[in-house]
């Protein structure tokens, strides 16, 4: 009874190891699938070739190179790897009161622009996102006001260092408040950010003056928090403002104007209300699909269920409205437990599926400044490729094969947890890919 799953797991491990990570020079050719390059029209019977982690060719009449592992994906679809451009992939869940077992996650400082998400990501947790075809994720803790700087990860490999696409990816400001510390009000949050930017600019000037003529001068004190803002001040690093209200979008723009920094807004469930402003200002948008986030209890009186319902409905329609108005935007999980369910909800509410696919591939790559290397199926880009069982983003469609940096991962093949004694173990489902390779 108990031997079978263990044997199966062992067998899988043996099978998986040689192609668990792209061997150098490995070449794949996905043949016969319906290919969605995103950067161009759909190719009905297309071939996607990638070598050594980079896409080599995409097209209808492409012949698989000699020596390539040819995988027949007839009846399936091929898309770029999905990008979650703003969320908590791989981060430990926030500490809940009395969770038993395991050490609690280290408490992140709520006001630490110098904190690095990279230091908090758990590799094994992060890799789970691949089950849904997500190959790239921008990671930043949800808690706090200045939660630090995000990392952009490619979700494949054995070491975090090898997964980094951009570090730091952006500095983040959540338009939120703290429970028992400054800033405890939204106006406090804005004031805190404003003062931090003034301080960071002065810190820059102070060090510049010192470096220009150090002799005879007192050395300025090193301040990691002010140091963290420096590349934001130069415009090199993006400031991503989490905008949960309509007016947070305006607040983000006001900060951009006051300090001449480059901003994007994230979540923005009410962005469609200010779509003209967003278009005029070409404000990069990372629109959340976490339509029903947990809400803070009402301080006074009874909770306004009617308003909450309206807020949820508005958020669900937000992507479709933005699309209709001609705005460009990415869809991001914004900590939704099921990213793709949120994307499907946006489609249900009127967002065309094609636009939705772009919004979770090429669009986030554009916002995050990596569209030259990923986000679409084009020669020369990183071989983040997903083979789906059916129409991408349809309800019952599953990711069958996920390639990250050209290395194959098969969600179906991952070892299942051992069933408890007495329950019959499910028979392992046959993997089409494994058969094709034999």
């Amino acid at each position, binding site marked *: 009874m108990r031997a079978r799953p263990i044997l199966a797991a062992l067998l899988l491990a043996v099978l998986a190891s040689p192609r668990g990570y792209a061997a150098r020079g490995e070449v794949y050719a996905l043949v016969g699938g319906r290919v969605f390059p995103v950067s161009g029209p759909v190719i009905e019977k297309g071939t996607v070739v990638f070598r050594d982690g980079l896409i080599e060719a995409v097209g209808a009449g492409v012949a698989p190179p000699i020596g390539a592992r040819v995988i027949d994906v007839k009846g399936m679809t091929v898309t770029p790897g999905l990008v979650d451009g703003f969320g908590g992939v791989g981060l430990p869940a926030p500490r809940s009161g009395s969770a038993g077992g395991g050490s609690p996650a280290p408490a992140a400082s709520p006001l630490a622009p110098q904190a690095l998400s990279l230091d908090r990501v758990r590799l094994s947790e992060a890799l789970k996102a691949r089950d849904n075809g997500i190959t790239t994720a921008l990671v930043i803790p949800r808690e706090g006001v200045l939660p630090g700087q995000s990392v952009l990860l490619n979700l494949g490999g054995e070491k975090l260092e090898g997964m980094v696409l951009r570090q730091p990816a952006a500095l983040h400001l959540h338009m939120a408040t703290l429970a028992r510390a400054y800033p405890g*009000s*939204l106006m*406090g949050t804005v004031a805190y950010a404003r003062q931090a930017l*003034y301080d960071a600019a002065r810190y820059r*000037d102070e060090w510049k003056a010192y470096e220009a003529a150090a002799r005879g001068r007192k050395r300025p004190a090193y301040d990691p928090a002010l140091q963290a803002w420096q590349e934001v001040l130069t415009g090199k690093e993006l400031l991503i403002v989490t905008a949960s209200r309509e*007016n947070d979008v305006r607040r983000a*723009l006001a900060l951009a104007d006051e300090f001449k920094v480059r901003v994007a807004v994230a979540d923005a469930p009410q962005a469609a209300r200010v779509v003209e402003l967003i278009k005029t200002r070409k404000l990069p948008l990372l629109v959340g699909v976490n339509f029903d986030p947990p809400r803070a209890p009402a301080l006074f009186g009874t909770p306004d269920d009617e308003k909450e319902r309206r807020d949820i409905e508005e958020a669900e329609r937000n992507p479709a409205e933005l699309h209709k108005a001609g705005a460009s935007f990415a869809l991001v999980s914004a900590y939704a437990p099921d990213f793709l369910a949120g994307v499907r909800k946006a489609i249900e509410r009127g967002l065309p599926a094609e636009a939705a696919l772009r919004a979770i591939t090429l669009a986030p790559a554009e916002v995050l400044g990596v569209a030259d290397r990923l986000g679409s199926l084009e020669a020369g880009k990183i071989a983040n490729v997903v083979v789906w069982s059916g129409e991408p983003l349809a309800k019952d469609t599953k990711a069958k094969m996920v390639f990250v940096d050209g290395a194959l991962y098969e969600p179906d093949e991952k070892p299942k947890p051992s069933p408890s004694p007495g329950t019959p173990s499910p028979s392992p489902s046959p993997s089409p890919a494994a058969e094709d390779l034999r």
Partner: protein
Amino acid sequence: MNALALGLLALAAAAPSPAPTRASETIAIRGGTVLTVGPQGMITNGTVLIRDGRIAAVGTDVAVPAGARVIDASGRYVIPGIIDAHSHTAIEGGVNECTDAVTAEVRIADVLDPHDVNIYRQLAGGVTSANLLHGSCNPIGGQNAVIKMRWGKGPADLVFAGAPPGVKFALGENPKRSNFRVPGVTRYPATRMGVEVVLRDAFRRAQDYKREWAEYDGKVKAAGAKGERPLAPRKDLELDELRDILDGKVYVHAHCYRADEILMLIHLADEFGFKIRTFQHVLEGYKVASEIAKHGAGASTFADFWGYKLEAFDAIPYNAAIMAAHGVNVSLNSDDDERARRLYWEAAKAVKYGGVSETEALKMVTLNPAWQLGVDKRVGSIEAGKDADIAIFSAHPFDPATRVEMTLVDGVVYFDRARDDGKGTIASAGGRR
């Protein structure tokens, strides 16, 4: 981002201009009884002519130009728009930054919520301007925002451009948190003594800050154009405000109740050489009315609301009348979204309690709060040259059965009972709720 993109961003920032808030059409409000609250007093069968959002002429023999939109106010009362000197309407994400004793750096203007339906409801009560104040959680709170009730416009359009900036102060039970204990949370001060120390300490720091910047400015001047520029002192957004209070550039609106704390603040302000613009609530103001008048501060109080906490027990309904009799500029405020809709009845109470004249009582919700907010040259009375902020009542504003029929801000009709759809919107304006 490269320089080009930054340049584009800067261009884009300049491009969208706020929606026009000033009416372009010429309007004549005719046939009503005009309570000007200005030198022209009461005018029966008067005409108020509005051009470019301002009052062009007022009188009985004002010619109405061809093409002007005529609003028939016969049988009605036309008064200046009501001004609420103490409001917490249309503020998003909390009215208190409670976590520190001094938070002069936080700004209500950063968190305006133009969709707050209370803006519309207050227009329906004839209110055209309000002083949105930080709460009274700490001795020195945040910066207030004086707004006009431009319902349906964006947050920046609400701001009353040109109104002097101000900071909220608070004395007594609220800043010492005696009625708001949160287990496990303590914050200095916890006594009235402590409140005074916080204020004194804050202004000492502001004096140091002012000196530091003055020295820097002196060095820059001495170095001349080609000399080495010294490093500027740290710009501290909190101390910026306190320094500007010392320099008389920023008003102080001080929440207070008891006579002793009012005197304390007057003495402290005299010591540091600044002025209190208004005492807010000031329920024991009648005990120290002469001192308030001598300092030159205004007083913004309730007509007959008291007893809701210990420091509000020793109040009398004659407070407004007594302070006014001693030469204090007195206003009656709401501090509340509901009371804000019927401030004209609060003014009527000043007639009932203390025998204030009708005109003086009406001033307490129009011209007097306008002075307290530093906008009396712009609003608060119906006079040629002033902003066309006007409310039209069905009967005298002190009549128990009166109601507001129409409210204009800068000559734009933002409330019109005849066109109200019962959902908080009219055809020409409208918000989200």
